[in-house]
């Protein structure tokens, strides 16, 4: 691959000093003069009609300035990002402060007061008459005809179905030597961003709304607020300050519309900060899926048919049709198989709504598919790596990833499971994974950028990108610096303010570096072109005879002809004879293709056969990331995904009381996140095969390894002790029970 001077370097984040000194101002740190604090009253019932809400006493409490409930809230539907309802023709299903509550945590009223304490006191004074309705927590029950309806305007508790048929699946099963069938279950997982969701909203006296949000699609939110509030977008400004993590959790409108409504009512700025319990119960979770997978295979390991039936738990409201689409895509597309049938249903239940979460439907699919591939390999006596190579659709660099990982982990020394009792046993497992660069299918996926040249020859990248801890304010600047032959210091970044940055679809689908990177590179190339033309005119040579390095332009034919960028801006300003005076590059890009980032994840586990306790000893992720614009940032993304997904594999679970529907573990003490003491030894190896469409060959990569961890751990447990876990999380209790019945 080509050598670059800024791209590909392990450079520290541009904002690292602000963060490490505690000076970085996050949303939760913002305080405006005369600001009010708002709290939300939430339903204690999973399913109930809200018969009457009496807020009169709360309104009389000194310090209370605005109260919002079904009595006075707008009745229009809350729009969702990506405009999915229009793309897929799915009716919106959520009204804020509705006549019905559909999960424990659904909003019933909101109070703005001069302090958080007064707002909380006021919530206690609100009287609500509920008429309880039967609640449903099981997707199989919910989908039955005649089940109590969660949304009255639906015939069944199905948000939407999804059917895909390719070839003839029955013929595929007829041709198969063996048919494998298994049901896999995955749990709801919470994103647990460290910073709680927070929003500040303020109207000026001309009726313009400014809102500071913890949200990673500010352009999209800008549109949603305009639509919901019935305001022109030109009167709304969305600002995203430092954002303390999200992983998909801050991609829908959870509190921003409520803050704006209260601010409008009270005529004062409003701040809403969710409690940690609210983050757990009243935002979104990962979709819990039940996946029935049936696969036909020939004696030599070639797949002949893949049939899947998926019940994806949407919870109370449906935000994302595309999550189930990604699940379908992973099951259908990853391996070559002429006959596939996918039947999926997004099922309403009385759970906290499911929404986007890192991996976005892919980890559920890969847990089922990659577990099944090992089951097939085991039965047919084929090496698990071999059977994958045999069936892979996308050859690209995955064989290289597999070979490198196999060598590092000592794959050839892997032993078969034995049934020694009362011992700690080790096993090694593998799973492949995949990651799109950007959103696939019908989704809007585009980015724009400006690159402004300062008079002194330094530049400002103005990007719609959202840095939520992903480091894109640094990596995008690296791209601009490389394109213009500048150092990183000479590229500043403006981002996260809809009043000054161009449109961007948002930070999701591993698209930021890829798409915003393409736009930033093209905008930098545009300003470069303008500079070259100007210099060519000044030198009296052709632009093609010029070269840019280190912030200067040289003539290739006459090395005495040199102008720095600042010489060019000065000359342009002094000589008003035309041409570009204000050097401003601009670009707007649509996704040119979803260059996949593939990889393989290897793990070694130790299973205590006396207790069922699984210790993940080592995880090795090998991923083709294309060109790593900043390898330190890229490794950090993979390492972080591994922490989240090791928890997904072993410990993390949103646990509800089956009677009341209340979350039992909505806090750090009981939602079992892995700490630094729990984490295995993690090693990341980058394979860099340039993606022809990506900026400097980069691929979107940050969600890929999410698909690999759970199946690799399940496969390693099987390799250690010969039991197959098909349900996540693989707790010691489940492992122990499986050991007893083997």
């Amino acid at each position, binding site marked *: 691959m080509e050598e670059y001077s800024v791209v590909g370097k*392990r450079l*520290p*984040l541009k*904002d*690292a*000093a*602000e*963060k*490490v*000194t*505690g*000076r*970085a*101002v*996050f949303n*939760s*740190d913002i305080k405006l003069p005369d600001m009010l604090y708002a709290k939300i009253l939430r339903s204690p019932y999973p399913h109930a009609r809200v018969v009457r809400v009496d807020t009169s006493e709360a309104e009389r409490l000194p310090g209370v300035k605005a109260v919002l409930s079904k009595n006075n809230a707008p009745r229009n539907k809350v729009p969702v990002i990506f405009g999915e309802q229009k793309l897929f023709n799915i009716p919106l299903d959520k009204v804020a402060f509705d006549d019905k509550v559909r999960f424990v945590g659904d909003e019933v009223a909101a109070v703005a007061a001069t302090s958080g304490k007064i707002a909380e006191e006021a919530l206690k004074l609100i009287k609500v008459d509920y008429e309880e309705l039967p609640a449903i927590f099981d997707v199989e029950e919910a989908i039955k005809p005649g089940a109590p309806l969660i949304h009255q305007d639906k015939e069944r508790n199905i948000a939407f179905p999804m059917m895909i048929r390719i070839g003839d699946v029955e013929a595929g099963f007829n041709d198969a030597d063996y048919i494998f069938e298994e049901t896999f279950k995955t749990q709801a997982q919470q*994103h*647990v*961003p*460290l*910073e*709680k969701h927070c929003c500040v909203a303020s109207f000026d006296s001309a009726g313009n709304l400014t809102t500071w949000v913890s949200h990673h699609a500010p352009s999209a939110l800008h549109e949603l607020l305009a639509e919901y509030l019935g305001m022109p977008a030109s009167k709304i400004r969305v600002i995203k300050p*430092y*954002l*303390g*993590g999200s*992983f998909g959790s801050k991609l829908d409108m959870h509190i921003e519309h409520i803050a704006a409504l209260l601010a409008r009512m009270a005529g004062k700025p409003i701040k809403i900060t969710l*409690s*940690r319990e609210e983050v757990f119960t009243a935002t979104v979770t990962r979709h819990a899926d039940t996946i029935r997978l049936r696969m036909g295979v020939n004696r030599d390991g070639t797949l002949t048919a893949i049939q899947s039936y998926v019940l994806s738990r949407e919870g109370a409201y449906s935000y994302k049709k595309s999550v189930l689409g990604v699940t379908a895509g992973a099951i259908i597309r990853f391996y070559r198989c002429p006959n596939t049938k996918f039947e999926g249903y997004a099922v309403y239940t009385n759970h906290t709504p499911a929404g986007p979460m890192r991996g976005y439907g892919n980890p559920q699919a890969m847990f089922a598919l990659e577990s099944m591939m090992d089951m097939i390999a085991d039965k047919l006596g084929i090496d698990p790596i071999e059977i994958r190579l045999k069936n892979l659709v996308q050859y690209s660099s995955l064989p290289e990833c597999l070979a490198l990982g196999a060598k590092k982990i000592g794959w050839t020394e892997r032993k078969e499971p034995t049934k020694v009792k009362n011992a700690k046993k080790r096993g090694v497992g593998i799973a492949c994974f995949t990651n799109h660069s950007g959103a696939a299918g019908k989704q809007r996926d585009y980015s724009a950028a400006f690159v402004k040249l300062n008079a002194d020859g330094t530049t400002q990248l103005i990007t719609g990108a959202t840095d*939520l*801890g*992903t*480091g894109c304010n640094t990596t995008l600047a690296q791209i601009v610096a490389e394109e213009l032959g500048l150092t990183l210091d000479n590229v500043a970044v403006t981002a996260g303010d809809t009043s000054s940055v161009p449109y961007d679809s948002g930070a999701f689908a591993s698209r930021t570096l890829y798409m915003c990177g393409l736009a930033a590179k093209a905008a930098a190339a545009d300003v470069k072109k303008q500079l070259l033309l100007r210099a060519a005119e000044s030198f009296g040579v052709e632009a093609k005879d010029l070269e840019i390095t280190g912030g200067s332009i040289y003539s290739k034919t006459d090395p005495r002809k040199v102008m720095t960028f600042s010489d060019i801006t000065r000359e342009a300003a002094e000589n008003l004879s035309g041409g570009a005076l204000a050097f401003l590059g601009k670009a707007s890009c649509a996704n040119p293709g979803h260059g996949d980032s593939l990889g393989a994840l290897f793990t070694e586990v130790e299973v205590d056969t006396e207790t069922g306790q699984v210790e993940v000893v080592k995880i090795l992720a090998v991923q083709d990331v294309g060109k790593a614009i900043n390898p*330190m*940032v890229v*490794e*950090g993304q993979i*390492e*972080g*995904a*591994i*922490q*989240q997904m090791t928890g997904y594999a072993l410990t993390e679970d949103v646990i509800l009381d089956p009677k009341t529907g209340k979350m039992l573990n909505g*806090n*750090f*003490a009981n939602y079992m*996140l892995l*700490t*630094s*003491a*729990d*984490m295995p030894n*993690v090693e990341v190896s980058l394979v860099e095969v340039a993606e022809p469409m990506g900026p400097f060959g980069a691929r979107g990569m940050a969600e890929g390894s999410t698909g690999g961890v759970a199946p690799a751990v399940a496969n390693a447990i099987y390799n250690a002790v010969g039991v197959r876990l098909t349900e996540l999380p693989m707790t010691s209790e489940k492992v122990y029970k499986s050991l007893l019945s083997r």
Partner: protein
Amino acid sequence: MGKRLVTMTVNGETAEVAVEPSAMLIDVLRDELGLIGVKDACGRGECGTCTVILDGKAVNSCIIPVMKAVGKEVWTIEGLDRQLGKLHPIQEAFIEYGAIQCGFCTPGMVLSAKALLDENANPTEQEVRVALSGNICRCTGYVKIINAVLAVAQRMKK
């Protein structure tokens, strides 16, 4: 209950503050003294983002009643580079090793690392892991944080 005037040493300077006696240390540091590097993420002493150093020990300021800090010495993240006139070596290592992503856990993480290294200048990897286990990070997977702290210990030996 009315406010009470109390005195403590914050980041090397005497601070006289009027506090609600029922307030937690975090509230006084953030709301009265404007030290926003003390982050709030759980309010129950479970995540470590509000870590400060109180008389040499790393504590969760969200569960320390402010009256327990009266007359004592408190260090927040803001004090580290102010005292030295430059970044603390732990801060430098966090930057250099890529131990920072969203940055929300970073102040607490740095202070827990400082409390560890002040007490044990030559920790093993396991000791680092245990010392930081009260500080949750959801971005980094801890790999680069642990490496940064071990690197500082190595440098301090020289």
